[in-house]
């Protein structure tokens, strides 16, 4: 009966109840939505690289190495000799190696020289391998494989010819005009920097820089058979390693860091990624703060609306007291009204967020690479909703106390 009275009481003030409910729903929507995005951003960030045990580059800071090798941000301090790469990649503990050569660009997108191993072994997310949206991996010197964003932004498809430039600006002066590359494959979206990268063979980069002198001249120079005996590059920028046994990770890392030939360093991508994310925790906290403030505003608004209603309820209070209701009962009645509004707000906000996510989920994934999963009730979200309920009780304490004192001081 208590619950029935609270519900009926709210229904008798439909207008203000609905407005308050909407404010709370919006706040819950924002709160859960931001939490969802924050968590997914962290997850997809942490899974930018997976399955790679070590990343090796010239001696520099570990974040710097991570940034240029994985995120294509910043510039490498130095290159690694091809010989050093071969020495390490051929050692016993290594299962596979992916060499990376950076330095060229096309329309502002970075070009990465690598090998077939990249498509075979590079994985992201929960050990997901790269998949082709269209076409296939490169086989010839002047083949190129585009990340999904490059293809969609520039409108390229399989068969398009592209000219690469040295340096990173789209208006670079040194364009390797004489050597157009042909798009042979387009990767499916990954939500990682791979989407913004153009992949070519190592020897493609070499050939391009050599001005075409090492390969037959002509627009369709790579029309020759898949070349196996290309001139090996002198140096590469970095490489990724997969180990036969993860047990040897630290061992191999130490060996590389002490590599005699030249100053090298190896980093564990997982560790470096979480270090980098730590630096962005400020951003996370700001997001959380914003959603907390939105919620606070909604809850305080509810408190104000309930408080205003107490004045109109004088006669009701008197009647309830005469019927035998204690002042505490009336206190609880107002709190209950607040709790009903709060729970309905959670339901409404949660459902609309769920609906919104399932509607825009795919679009967000393909555009921002954020995989928004519909599982809203994570333990953290549940904890937050608990906190919301407490905030509601606290904000409703003011009108409830007002009700209590009016109930005690009947005149």
């Amino acid at each position, binding site marked *: *009966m*208590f619950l029935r009275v609270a519900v*009926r*009481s709210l229904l008798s003030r439909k207008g203000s109840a609905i407005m308050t409910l909407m404010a709370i729903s919006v706040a819950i929507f924002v709160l859960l939505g931001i939490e969802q995005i924050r968590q997914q951003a962290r997850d997809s960030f942490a899974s930018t690289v997976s399955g790679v045990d070590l990343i090796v580059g010239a001696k520099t800071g570990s974040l710097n190495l991570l940034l240029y090798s994985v995120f294509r941000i910043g510039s490498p301090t130095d290159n690694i000799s091809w010989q050093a790469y071969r020495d390490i990649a051929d050692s016993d503990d290594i299962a596979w190696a992916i060499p990376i050569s950076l330095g060229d660009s096309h329309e502002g997108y970075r070009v990465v020289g690598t090998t077939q191993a990249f498509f075979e072994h590079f994985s992201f997310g929960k050990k997901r391998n790269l998949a082709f949206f269209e076409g296939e991996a490169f086989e010839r010197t002047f083949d190129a494989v585009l990340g999904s964003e490059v293809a969609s932004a520039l409108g390229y498809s399989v068969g398009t010819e592209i000219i690469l430039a040295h340096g990173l600006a789209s208006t670079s002066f040194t364009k390797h005009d004489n050597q157009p590359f042909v798009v042979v494959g387009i990767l499916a979206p990954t939500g990682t920097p791979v989407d913004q990268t153009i992949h070519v063979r190592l020897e493609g980069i070499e050939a391009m820089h050599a001005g075409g002198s090492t390969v037959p001249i002509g627009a369709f120079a790579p029309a020759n058979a898949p070349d196996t005996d290309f001139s090996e590059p002198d140096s590469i920028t970095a490489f990724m390693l997969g180990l036969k046994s993860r047990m040897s990770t630290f061992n191999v890392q130490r060996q590389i860091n002490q590599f005699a030939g030249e100053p090298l360093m190896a980093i564990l991508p997982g560790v470096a990624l979480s270090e980098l994310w730590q630096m962005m925790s400020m951003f996370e906290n700001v997001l959380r703060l914003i959603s907390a403030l939105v919620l606070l505003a909604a809850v305080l608004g509810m408190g104000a609306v309930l408080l205003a209603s107490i004045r109109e309820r004088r006669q009701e209070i*008197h*009647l*309830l007291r*005469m019927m035998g*209701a204690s*002042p505490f009962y009336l206190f609880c009645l107002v709190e209950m009204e607040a709790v009903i509004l709060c729970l309905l707000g959670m339901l409404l906000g949660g459902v609309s967020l769920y609906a919104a996510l399932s509607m825009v989920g795919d679009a967000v994934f393909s555009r921002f690479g954020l995989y928004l999963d519909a599982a809203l009730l994570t333990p953290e979200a549940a904890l937050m909703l608990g906190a919301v309920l407490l905030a509601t009780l606290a904000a409703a304490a003011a009108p409830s106390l007002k009700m209590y004192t009016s109930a005690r001081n009947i005149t």
Partner: protein
Amino acid sequence: MAVQLTGVQFSYENDSQRQLLDIEQWGVERGERVLIHGPSGAGKTTLLNIMSGLLACTRGNVSVLDQRLDQMSGKQRDQFRANNIGCVFQRFNLIPYLNAIDNIGLARTFSAGGSVQWRDEASALLSTLRIEQSDWVKPTSNLSMGQQQRVAIARALINSPLLLIADEPTSSLDSENRDNFLSLLMELIGSRDMTLIFVSHDMALAEHFTRLEALSDIARRPC
């Protein structure tokens, strides 16, 4: 005794200089039907509030149905009122957003008899009070004043109180509804052996009561 007041004084905490009520000795026997009349603002409602335990007197003994209200805590008085005292006012006798049945059920939840089968009793009361069944589940704000006051009787009697306190319950009614209301009220009270304390300025009602009291005779007010 249904009510026994001895040396009762009352003033509001924030205005303790002004005695609103000062009663030396006054009592009501069980089964009496007392009509209290007096000018408005004379403290009739305050007197009723003290007898119902809604207000605690500043000084003196208040004994209702042989229980000392002045020695009870606020919570005990609330419980006592829910169990033993029915109240009907001039208006606003029903929670407007609940229907008749829910109003009666709500009154029931406050009494010690709590959740026992009350629906049958409520139906019987509403039938006796000639409220049509279709009106039982309408929001009470849709009922006429006469209907509302009759539902109020049902609400006041659902916990089978021994004392009924009525504060000008007929003042908002036309003469036909007033007579209707009074005859039904007296019929129910008679069949239940209840004590009735009824406040009104309408002396024409006197024939229904066993005793007539002027507030000025009950209380002396040092003004």
